[in-house]
């Protein structure tokens, strides 16, 4: 059972355009929502993250919008560049025994930015 639903599965955007990836969750115990970026053959790397007491967070060209009542959050990539072509994963965290971060990931969005 997928607790974090991500869409779309793939996305093609023109250079300079806006890329938007959406995620929805069900578990209200989640308390931290990171986005990871993964290039082929590499491990995922943290891109940006948000806590549910904030509705928006911006870091450079990347913005997370968070709607707690709707249990949805999204990643916006402004001025998309070919170097942004990668797979993006949203995730949500539960705290586990000992204080560890148990992340539940979405299924991923493969982004391609065309010239």
């Amino acid at each position, binding site marked *: 059972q997928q607790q974090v639903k*991500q869409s779309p599965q793939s996305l093609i955007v023109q250079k300079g355009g806006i890329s938007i990836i959406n995620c929805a969750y069900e578990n209200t115990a989640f308390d*931290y929502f*990171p986005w*990871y970026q993964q290039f082929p*053959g*590499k*491990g*995922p*790397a*943290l891109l940006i*993250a948000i806590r549910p007491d904030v509705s928006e967070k911006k870091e450079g060209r990347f913005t997370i919008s968070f709607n707690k009542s709707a249990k949805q959050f999204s990643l916006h990539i402004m001025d998309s560049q070919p170097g942004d072509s990668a797979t993006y*994963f949203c*995730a949500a*965290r539960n705290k*586990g*025994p*000992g*204080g*560890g*971060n*148990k*992340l*539940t*990931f*979405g*299924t*991923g969005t493969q982004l391609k930015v065309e010239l």
Partner: protein
Amino acid sequence: DAGITQSPRHKVTETGTPVTLRCHQTENHRYMYWYRQDPGHGLRLIHYSYGVKDTDKGEVSDGYSVSRSKTEDFLLTLESATSSQTSVYFCAISSGADTQYFGPGTRLTVL
């Protein structure tokens, strides 16, 4: 890759054989995690460790065991590998802050 190495990086094995994957960190982080990545499923947590000899199950722990006898090493064992365990396995570490840092991955093929 934040001082994380995984070995082996690639492995092909046969059904029914035992397999052990190793994650080694040089960051002295308290928490270590094992995930598997499969198309259409994203990354799924197998097990994690919150200290030496302290582990907890993730969402897909069946068929896997882990051990952590030293802070720097976290081992994932498939006691009797099955074809459904063909996947890319990622180790991650964190200090207790929010960020998890992922290793380069191990591609495992079970024939």
